[in-house]
């Protein structure tokens, strides 16, 4: 570990942050997920703003620790990681490339979020069709709204007989 503080510009900090992955979805970085929102450097102090995904997401603390670790091992000593609640995290912030990576990892990616006006009516209609990430079949069935983590739902594909997870739209 370098002993003297190292100076970085903003782009270089963003680059360092791209090494931090979500421990529950290790193919995606916190940039691709839209968790890291803003980097500011003032008088050599690095401030990183992050926004939590789900309120009860147990990965958030791990992510915060991981950001601190990455900054520290790269010689940054004066930094702060802040949680920002003013914007509400949404899966719409995920890039198309990130969605493609999710699919390749075996998780059906989120579609576009619905507007709230439809919600009470949508309760009465059957759930949306989610294509299988393995064989693209639409002959799939929702098994549970809650999968291994709060952000995923559990589905089953009747064509390739594989269970799979869907990253919920939120």
């Amino acid at each position, binding site marked *: 570990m370098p002993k003297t503080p190292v100076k970085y510009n903003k782009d270089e900090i963003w680059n360092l942050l791209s090494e931090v992955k979500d421990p529950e979805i290790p193919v995606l970085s916190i940039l691709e997920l839209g968790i890291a929102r803003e980097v500011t450097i003032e008088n050599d102090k690095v401030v990183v703003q992050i926004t*939590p995904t789900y*309120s*009860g*997401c147990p990965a958030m603390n791990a992510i915060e620790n991981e950001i601190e670790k990455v900054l520290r091992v790269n010689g940054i000593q004066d930094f702060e990681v802040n949680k920002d*609640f*003013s914007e*509400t*995290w949404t899966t719409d912030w995920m890039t198309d490339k990130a969605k493609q990576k999710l699919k390749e990892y075996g998780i059906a990616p989120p579609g576009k979020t619905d507007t*709230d006006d439809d919600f009470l009516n949508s309760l009465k209609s059957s759930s949306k069709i989610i294509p299988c990430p393995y064989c693209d079949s639409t002959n799939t069935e929702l098994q*549970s709204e809650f999968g291994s983590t709060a952000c995923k739902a559990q589905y089953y594909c009747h064509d390739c007989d594989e269970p799979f997870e869907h990253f919920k739209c939120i």
Partner: protein
Amino acid sequence: MSTETTTLTKQDALFEYLVRLADDRLILGHRLSEWCGHGPILEEDIALANISLDYIGHAASLYEYAVEVEDKGRHRDNLVYFRNDVEYKNLKITELPKGDFGFTIARQFLFAGFSYFLYKQLSDVEDEQFAGMAQKHLKEVKYHLRHSREWVLRLGDGTDESHERIQNSFNDIWTYVGELFHQDEIEELLQGEKLAADSENFKSDWKELVVDTLEEATLEVPDFDQFMVEGSRDGLHTEHLGHLLAEMQHLRRSYPDADWE
């Protein structure tokens, strides 16, 4: 807290309001966590644990904001671990024992439906941080409502056994639903400042959701005009809350300076 000799300030009222909302979610989240490892099927075990985490997460952010509003340098955990039952302001409906799966689902449905309409209103309060929290919680509550509503239909319109059990659950819990819509001087003061919801405005929408769902589930809707219990916001609780708090608080009280790090 206000007494008759001091006037209630906006700051006091907002602190109290946030703590009430947080208490409801912490206690219900704790009750749901009791299902972890005991769910009727693996998927439901996971679902209830996830919903429990959401509620505890909502409570954490509400307490965090409450101590910020209070501005006395108190840590949010202090509110959780060092208040006694009479100081807790959660509604009694949230503290009742988890019962069987039918009872848990009946309560989740009634509470998630209420929270949905509540958070829709809170999303527009004139306080950026509070509104931001409500918008975030609302997204999650939609999943809670979808989940519990589908189970009400499945159990109500399922076997004779499941039908009877969830019907009994709704009958038993009914006396506690009136309090969801209780409002007092705290809400009144904050409504004037556009800092609180007015549950009178969505009471009929909530009833419609409940009646529609229960009828679709072939269940009888209990009488909304029956006797309803009161007093939770003044710290009056059932005997169940004390036992829950004993379990939740004993470690922290035995080792007040213990830390995870």
